[in-house]
């Protein structure tokens, strides 16, 4: 059944192969394990990533990159998966989870993880100063714990 579904999808794609870019795809994985610590792509690579067109240095994991990786991941996921499996992202970004990332990874204080320490007290201030920062993860999913107290109304 799956083979039939894949074939059904492939037939029209093959018939229209002239419509696709002739450029070779990025490899599925980086050719070797990069080890621990933040990756600095620009340290080994110069120029631009073929097929993506952006400089290697643009993906070096500086503090700025870590803070704003969402803007890059939304455009160039095929670069992220060169080194990261999806489970790495799902340490924080999951539709449903119940262990805080900083507790699940309490042995990794070097990772930039959200809600460290007593966030129950802090969320009341952060939530009022920038509710959109809560919304990204808890807006349409992963809000079972929030709803236990916030049953509607009364907040600004």
């Amino acid at each position, binding site marked *: 059944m799956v083979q039939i579904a894949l074939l059904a999808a492939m037939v029209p794609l093959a018939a229209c192969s002239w419509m696709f870019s002739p450029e070779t795809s990025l490899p599925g994985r980086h050719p070797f394990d990069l080890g621990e610590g933040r990756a600095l792509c620009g340290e080994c690579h110069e120029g631009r990533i073929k097929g993506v067109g952006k400089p290697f240095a643009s993906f070096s994991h500086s503090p700025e990159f870590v803070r704003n990786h969402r803007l890059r991941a939304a455009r160039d996921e095929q670069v992220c998966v060169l080194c990261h499996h999806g489970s790495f992202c799902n340490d924080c970004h999951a539709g449903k989870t119940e262990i805080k990332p900083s507790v699940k990874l309490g042995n990794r204080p070097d990772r930039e993880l959200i809600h460290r*320490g007593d966030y129950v007290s802090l969320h009341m201030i952060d939530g009022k100063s920038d509710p959109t920062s809560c919304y990204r993860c808890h807006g349409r999913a992963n809000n079972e714990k929030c709803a236990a107290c916030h049953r509607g109304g009364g907040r600004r």
Partner: protein
Amino acid sequence: MKKNLYRLLSAVFLMALPAAALADTSVDSATIFRFSQDSRPGFQKKDFTPATQFLGADFEKLGDGNLSLHLYGWGRYDLADKSYNNDRADGALTYAYAQYRTDQANGLIRFGRFFINEGIVNEHVDGLNVRSDLPLGFGISAFGGATVHTVHMPGEITDGKGDGLVGGRLHYRYKGMLELGVSGVYESDAPALNQASNQQLAASGRFGSHRLLGGDVWLNPHRMVEIMGHSSYNAETEGVAEHSYLLNVKPLKDLVLTGEFNEYRDRDLFFSSIFFAGLLDNLNDRSRTMGGRASYELNRMVEISGDFKHFTREIGKADRFGGDIRFALLDKALRTGVGYHYLRASRNFAVAPSASGSFHEARAYAMHDTKSYFAAVDAIGYFFKENINNKSSAWEVTGSLGCRLTPALALSGDVSYGKNPQFVDDMKGLIRLTYNMNYTGKGGTK
């Protein structure tokens, strides 16, 4: 439809198992036992020992070498008192999909449960995703399927999402200088709600279907300058929901200067969230954040950063500023850092009307990671300008110690202790068994 989809997914994975034995395989497992006790005057004492298993596996280079399977999920069972909700056991299948990559055009077909993150679109889907680069710098990605539902909202038999969705992104790249994208998502009609208060949300135009359109840009006019961001438009409320833009300037190889601007219109952004629509009183608010960050890598061992952010809402304003220093010593085996930030906030952002919303945040950590053992200590404190629940601070210290039984298998334990406005003493512990194996030696173990 969903039952059939699950059956199909199971069939995919069962069929793939023999081939998976020959494939490039990665396994990522964490078994976590948490221990805590809730002892409060006037309440029954409770002991919590939830056991949680996270398991992920990736089977790559199947078939002709371009086919792969990916799955990840977790399950929890309470060994003592119920720890979280009304269920002693819980779990979730986070993703499970088969993927076929083509040798050219960065083509990709995904089938199963997956996250889609394209332009302004962030969705969790049971369905199909197809993506390819096209000639002349164009590219396309499209997806469709059933919405992945989460836990029902209190008093409802729905999470507020429609049952199906389609969407995608079309982009254009020009000579490594420019990328423009348009993206959108169309979800089927939002479900009817049971509770009168929630029905009122829908009737008053605070809650409805999830339908967004947007554009995104990446611009690299000079090797030192990079601009990126996106804007989204809510087709249901007919209003702009979000602008989010970032400017990076790299005057030196190891110096990054960043400026950011974000603007959100609450009603347009939160419209399809039954939880947020009911949570906020004033959905006509317009939030804006502006900020900057400078980070400099002194050498391969020391990294310094300083940041500032200004928050503006109709109910008040706040500023957050501070800095961090990170060290990576002994060939990255010893990693440590310190940080300090201060949030200066209007009274309207405070926990209670009589309190202040301002607080200091200080953190220090160190970890030593060797082939045989690893240890970490992490201390974080929030110091309030005015007391919350008669407490001037909330702090927590966590210690972690572990040993590698094999290069892939590790056993570790964490203990944390703190005091905060919620608890006189807050002590927790956990035991963690992790197995992270990459049988290919490529990419990363995660």
